[in-house]
């Protein structure tokens, strides 16, 4: 590569080389690293190409591609760490969400090494800044917890449901614990080049001397202590240790989690509005709950253990911002703590899209976007931020910020008064015909989507990707079962919760009905149809009286449904450990956004005891043998009202209609 080539040519070249990378070839990865080193003036273009490549390749090729990233940031360092760090959350999570368990394991290990300085180098900073990696960690913890919860729910599903839709957890095999960079013995890999970079001709004296450490060992070590690559530290078959996990281990794990919960609670108490802490605390509480209520397969326990160990070893969540974390660059006014978000970076549409399109990730983002560390200046324990803010490039603002900025720009979130969202891009001409990316930076700068489609043949022919956006990315919160999308707003989350609840109830009831058998219902009559309304929970209601109440249906559901009743989680430790006296089960602790506190769901306090509201309701209902059902759609649809009812009314409607 000679100096002076235009960036896009270099990028194109790099892209082509990447496309040849189908397996985990050390040789090719080294070459790609060298090319990156020799073309640091094109680092931005190369980083973009690499990110896109990781995003677009099929899942089985994502790992080698990520090894390239890993190798480049460790062996070349800046400016690649900056360019690749910007979107690391999306790049990493996007890949993570699509690969199999085995590969995830390797990605976990890779992530671990990014929190350390490059082994053997004089550099003392970690590969990527802590806040970058921490954001990923928090998202992963959350995702893992969610997965466990899903698994928990799956236990209620019909057997056929499990085989048809469930994704069984892959059984661990011996490759399970391979290091990211595979052992030499593996025939998949080319033998490493004899020397670090000897094959490449030295172009124009641009070549820098090889680093003091061989690149090979660089992207090998996912551990805290780098191992020479030819050792195979994980060769011991995992089977033994996994299946013989003694129960005392489980107990110690529970203890560790309890400790962490305690610590996190303390921190949370001192920084009450910190979302990262809150999410972490919620996740830990969920974990605790899962561990105490169900038997997990050993490898899941191992995964939790690893995570917990990481968290314990890394006990400063964002209360202490690393030196160059961007605190909100708005010194002129004191923003309200929850709405302040760092602004000003250019969103990265492509990556965002990749992320949003992947399953379940919408949830993670929804959390992650709120987890951008935003301690109010007054509460930041160290005030480095005072000399900091102005000098820091947008690079360090988290991707969540981009999302917020974008949604704001789209008019999907209320504008942030602190920061102008109109970038210098201004109003670009509408996207032109082909292969324009679905989200255009130009459109991001607009205050709202402009729908300029007229009912004319010419207007109908102009492609408008920014409007397609409204059908996809504008609603990033997707149901992974049926694909339905929701906004990433509070309402959207509520609707989705309602929707997931509907899936859950339906799945549970499908089990029952398989035994009972079901039949086609009679059709409704005209009046019933005219008065029927769909409820937000997805099933049609035919109750005429619901028409007026539709707007407040969600609210009234919450009031009527004992499952939605909640009380503040008791702080009294004695009470906090008491199960429900009726069913002897513990209460689910969740964060309530509206009330800004942890609550016990489905709970009522009567005297000194706390009961499940639903348990209590059933007891009150005479005998309590029949399960209580509220608002199940077919309880309304299944029964038919007496056929003659309503006929006089309908006839008067039609008589009126015919006259006019």
């Amino acid at each position, binding site marked *: 590569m000679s100096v002076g080539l235009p960036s896009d040519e270099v990028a194109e070249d790099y892209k082509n080389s990447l496309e040849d990378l189908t397996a985990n070839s050390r040789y090719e990865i080294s070459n790609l690293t060298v090319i990156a080193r020799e073309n640091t003036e094109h680092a931005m273009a190369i980083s973009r190409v690499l990110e896109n490549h990781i995003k677009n390749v099929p899942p089985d090729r994502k790992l080698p591609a990520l090894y390239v990233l890993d190798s480049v940031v460790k062996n070349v360092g800046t400016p690649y760490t900056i360019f690749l760090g910007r979107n690391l959350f999306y790049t990493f999570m996007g890949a993570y969400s699509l690969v199999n368990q085995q590969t995830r394991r390797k990605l976990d290990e890779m992530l671990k090494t990014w929190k350390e300085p490059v082994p053997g180098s004089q550099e003392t900073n970690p590969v990527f800044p802590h806040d970058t990696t921490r954001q990923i960690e928090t998202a992963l913890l959350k995702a893992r917890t969610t997965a466990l919860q899903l698994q928990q729910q799956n236990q209620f599903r019909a057997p056929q449901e499990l085989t048809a839709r469930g994704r069984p957890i892959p059984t661990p095999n011996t490759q399970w614990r391979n290091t990211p960079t595979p052992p030499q013995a593996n025939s998949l890999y080319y033998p490493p080049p004899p020397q670090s970079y000897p094959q490449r001709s030295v172009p124009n004296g641009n070549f820098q001397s090889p680093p003091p450490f061989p690149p090979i060992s660089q992207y090998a070590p996912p551990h805290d202590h780098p191992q020479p690559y030819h050792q195979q530290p994980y060769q011991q078959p995992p089977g033994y240790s996994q299946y013989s996990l003694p129960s005392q281990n489980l107990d110690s794990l529970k203890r560790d989690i309890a400790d962490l919960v305690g610590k996190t609670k303390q921190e949370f108490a001192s920084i009450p509005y910190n979302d990262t802490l809150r999410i972490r605390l919620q996740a830990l509480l969920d974990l605790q709950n899962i561990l105490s209520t169900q038997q997990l397969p050993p490898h899941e326990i191992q995964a939790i253990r690893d995570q917990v160990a990481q968290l314990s070893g890394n006990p400063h969540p964002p209360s202490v911002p690393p030196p160059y974390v961007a605190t909100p660059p708005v010194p002129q006014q004191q923003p309200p703590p929850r709405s302040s978000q760092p602004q000003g970076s250019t969103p990265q549409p492509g990556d965002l899209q990749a992320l949003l399109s992947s399953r379940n990730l919408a949830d993670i983002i929804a959390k992650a976007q709120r987890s951008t560390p935003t301690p109010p200046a007054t509460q930041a324990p160290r005030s480095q931020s005072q000399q900091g803010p102005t000098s820091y490039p947008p690079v360090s603002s988290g991707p969540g910020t981009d999302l917020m900025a974008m949604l704001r720009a789209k008019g999907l979130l209320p504008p942030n008064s602190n920061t102008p969202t109109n970038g210098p891009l201004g109003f670009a001409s509408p996207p032109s015909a082909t292969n324009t990316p*679905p989200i255009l930076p130009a459109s991001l700068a607009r205050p709202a989507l402009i729908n300029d489609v007229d009912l004319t043949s010419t207007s109908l022919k102009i492609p408008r990707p920014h409007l397609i956006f409204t059908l996809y990315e504008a609603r990033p919160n997707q149901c*992974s079962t049926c*694909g339905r999308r929701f906004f990433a707003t509070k309402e959207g989350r509520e609707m989705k919760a309602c929707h997931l609840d509907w899936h859950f109830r339906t799945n549970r009831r499908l089990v029952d009905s398989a035994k009972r058998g*079901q039949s*086609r*219902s009679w059709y409704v009559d*005209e009046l019933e149809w005219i008065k029927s309304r769909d409820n937000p929970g997805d*099933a049609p209601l035919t109750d005429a009286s619901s028409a007026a109440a539709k707007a407040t249906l969600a609210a009234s559901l919450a009031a009527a449904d004992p499952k939605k009743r909640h009380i503040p989680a008791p702080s009294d430790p004695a009470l906090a450990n008491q199960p429900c006296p009726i069913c002897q089960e513990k209460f689910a602790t969740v964060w309530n956004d509206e009330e800004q506190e942890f609550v016990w769901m489905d709970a009522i306090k009567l005297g000194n005891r706390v009961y499940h509201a639903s348990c209590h309701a059933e007891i009150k209902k005479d005998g309590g043998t029949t399960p209580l059902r509220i608002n199940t759609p077919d309880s309304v649809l299944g029964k038919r009202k007496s*056929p003659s009812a309503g006929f006089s009314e309908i006839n008067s409607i039609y008589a009126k209609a015919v006259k006019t």
Partner: protein
Amino acid sequence: MSLPGLELSASVETNIEPTVQDLKEGSEWRFEVAFGHQIEVKLLSGNAELFGTELAQKQPYTFTGTKAAIYTWHGCQLEVHGECQSEYIAEETPMISYANLHFALEKSREEASTTARDAPRVLIVGPENAGKTSLVKLLTAYATRSGRQPIAINLDTKEGMLSIPGTMSAAAFSSIIDVEDGWGSSPTTGPSPVPVKLPLVYFLGLANPEDKTSVYKPIMTRLALSVLNRLQDDGESRGTGCIIDTPGVISQGKGGYEIIQHIVSDFSVSVIVVLGSERLYSDMVRRFNGQRTSVGETIAVIKLDKSGGCVDRDEAYLQQVRQAQIREYFFGDAKSTLSPHTQQVDFTAVSIYRWADSSVDLTSLLPGDAVEENLAPSIFDKEEPSPQMQNAILAIVHADPSDPQETIRDASVIGFIYVAEVDEKRRKLKILAPLSGRLPNKAMIWGSWPEGVTDMVG
């Protein structure tokens, strides 16, 4: 009980390696699966939609007896198990203009809400096999995805919407549309993995409305009244409007155009979309352009290209589709199996009506003042059960057997029964009803469409 009619699905041939379809942005995968065969499709990565409804990633979708297309705006990867009758990737589609039609409608919905006017009522016309139903489905799905609640209306009695062929129906859509199975399912007594839709159904019992416009028109008018009432009553639907599917046959001119005229005025149609026919477009422009609706809007007439994915569906295939729709009414589909109920009923327990068999429409021949009560030709003949009825479908309607014939004609459908056996000696009928329990004591209509199904009950 063992019912031969239940063999709806064949298993996926699992010994065949799955194929992976890589779709570039803006392309679609068109596929046909024969009846008795089944494929399973999974979205591996990217975004994809089927007639406007988005697919969830990694979820298996199964198709049988289908001709459809999966489109992607952003590019995607599909994994396909099983064998298609034919399949290919097309890069030229009219999707941009179809989506833009949706956005144009969205714009007028927004305008309607700010100016307190009515949201658009959209009529889709075009010849057979132009993709009218697919377009209606796409517009319905997009509106639903945009947080709206459109009312979809089917006036094509050749195929049913949320019901069997021979019917006209309407339903509000606020939840996701079934990807695997047409328009999805009407309510059952149990849960459904895809939200059910609540249809209002009317029965014509004829394939071609022009065979009996004297019956088609009043029923259609009645359906329109119900829809307009719903639009008035239901704020969600009022803000969205309706989308109307029509039979291809009325787009051939002559009497058909008169039916279109009726539809336009009954539903107060504000947008006429002509699909895949220049001639029809110019005829529609001549008839309707610049005309005003009952509420004073100017009617817009626009044309759209037909999709290259539209294939001519031969009669044998269409008959299989009809039979599958009827079976599904009684027995459900692969996702939820339904248990219909066989029972014996006395001849005296049923009141069956059949459209009066007049090859000529008598009303048009009689002088105006002769159409008086006693001289008015009867709409129906009352029929005793007879062996002819074997394998027929009867519609039970929301009208008493003693009601005037107009009332019976205009009444909406309660449900259908299938006549399995007629025992003239014992004067008993063996019937299949969707539900157990006594049959509603209501009038029943025996149409000539859909044709009987032979192997329904063993």
